[in-house]
């Protein structure tokens, strides 16, 4: 079964289990939280890659003794955990408006996520309860630091980025254990997934840094202050975007972030290959190459990655 089929089947089954008055809300969720501009886009067509929602299914291809029931539990738990995390993040960011129906829907999402996880692990407590807390703590810490435009290090950046992504791991780790993989293999799964989520996060933070700065919170700016000194990019420079952009470009932090992304994908590709998750390894290797290319172009022409992103729709329309 294709990953997209797994993902859409999981969401369809979940929607079918909801009270009737929430089914429409569920169908509109991706639009409500600002992931798509139009209604009725299947979840499999929302993200640029299949790893975000389908990581356990990709890893399962390397698990010869995995059962279909375990696989579906794992994909269900993972997908609902990610959907919930995006919705919460968008609401905290005020990109999505909270409502009673949305809150009720997310309660159902978390309940179904935890039930799928317990079926998979045969434990009494869902690991999502803990990881959700640590993820929210990392999100709040990041928000405070970035809003105050603190001087931050790349170690701070890596640590908080990983903390925010804690919900991306439990389902795949539980699936690996349930299918009989040993501790070393489970650990390799964890490190491979860490490489993937960090690779995606670092790249995203480069692409969106100017928009993030307009919203008052950008890693690139805080890292620039960490590299070039606290005098660089004063928080009071918010009204001077060109000055901030110039300082960020000169600091070289965008290139460093792209190289961090490249190395994360390389680590993930190596581990996925060792595990036999070949499709995942191939995808991660491709991302590694993309990041190497982008880092080179950003080095040659500062701001390249942001401009490429901002021109993407125009280039699609005009150049095909």
């Amino acid at each position: 079964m294709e990953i997209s089929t797994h993902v859409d089947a999981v969401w369809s089954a979940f929607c079918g289990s909801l009270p009737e008055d929430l089914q429409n809300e569920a169908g509109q969720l991706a639009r409500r939280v600002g992931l798509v501009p139009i209604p009725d886009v299947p979840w499999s067509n929302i993200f640029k890659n299949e790893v975000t929602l389908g990581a356990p299914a990709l890893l399962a291809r390397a698990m010869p003794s995995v059962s279909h029931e375990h696989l579906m539990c794992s994909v269900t738990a993972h997908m609902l955990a990610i959907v919930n995390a995006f919705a919460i993040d968008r609401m905290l960011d005020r990109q999505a408006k909270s409502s009673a129906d949305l809150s009720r829907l997310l309660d159902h999402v978390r309940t179904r996520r935890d039930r799928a996880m317990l079926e998979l692990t045969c434990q009494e407590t869902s690991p999502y309860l803990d990881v959700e807390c640590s993820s929210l703590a990392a999100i709040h810490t990041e928000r405070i630091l970035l809003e105050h435009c603190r001087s931050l290090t790349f170690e701070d950046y890596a640590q908080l980025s990983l903390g925010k992504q804690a919900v991306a791991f439990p389902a795949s780790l539980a699936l690996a254990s349930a299918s009989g993989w040993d501790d070393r293999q489970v650990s390799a799964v964890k490190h491979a997934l860490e490489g993937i989520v960090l690779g995606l996060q670092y790249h995203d933070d480069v692409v969106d840094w100017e928009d993030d700065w307009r919203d008052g919170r950008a890693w690139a700016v805080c890292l620039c202050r960490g590299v070039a000194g606290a005098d660089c990019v004063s928080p009071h420079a918010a009204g001077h975007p060109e000055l901030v952009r110039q300082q960020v470009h000169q600091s070289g932090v965008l290139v460093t972030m792209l190289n961090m992304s490249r190395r994360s994908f390389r680590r993930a590709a190596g581990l996925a290959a060792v595990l036999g998750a070949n499709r995942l390894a191939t995808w991660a290797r491709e991302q590694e190459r993309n990041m190497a290319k982008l880092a080179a172009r950003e080095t040659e022409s500062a701001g390249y990655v942001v401009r490429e992103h901002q021109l993407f729709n125009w280039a699609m329309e005009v150049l095909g």
Partner: protein
Amino acid sequence: MNTAQQTDPQAQLRSLYMSLLTKQERFDEFKQLLAMYPTVQGEEEVEPADAAEVRQKLNQRIREWTGSSFAGLSSSQIQMWRAIVVDNRFNVALSPWKESNMY
């Protein structure tokens, strides 16, 4: 003597794209000129003089950036470019939101 880039419209657009990608000041000016072009005009309306001036300036700048004999954008073309680049409206059939939802 005309090279392919000087006469081929697609080659000219690719050259413009590369020029915008590699030079921040050109990208800023491109966006600024598109933003200066008025958004709503009835199909039957004559292009206002100030809009025509912006269009001519943008066409001239594109010729300078690409070093080509770029034929120039029509009023409807420039409005479409503005809608995509400045107003962030796009063709939903292309699923362009995926580019923003990288993870």
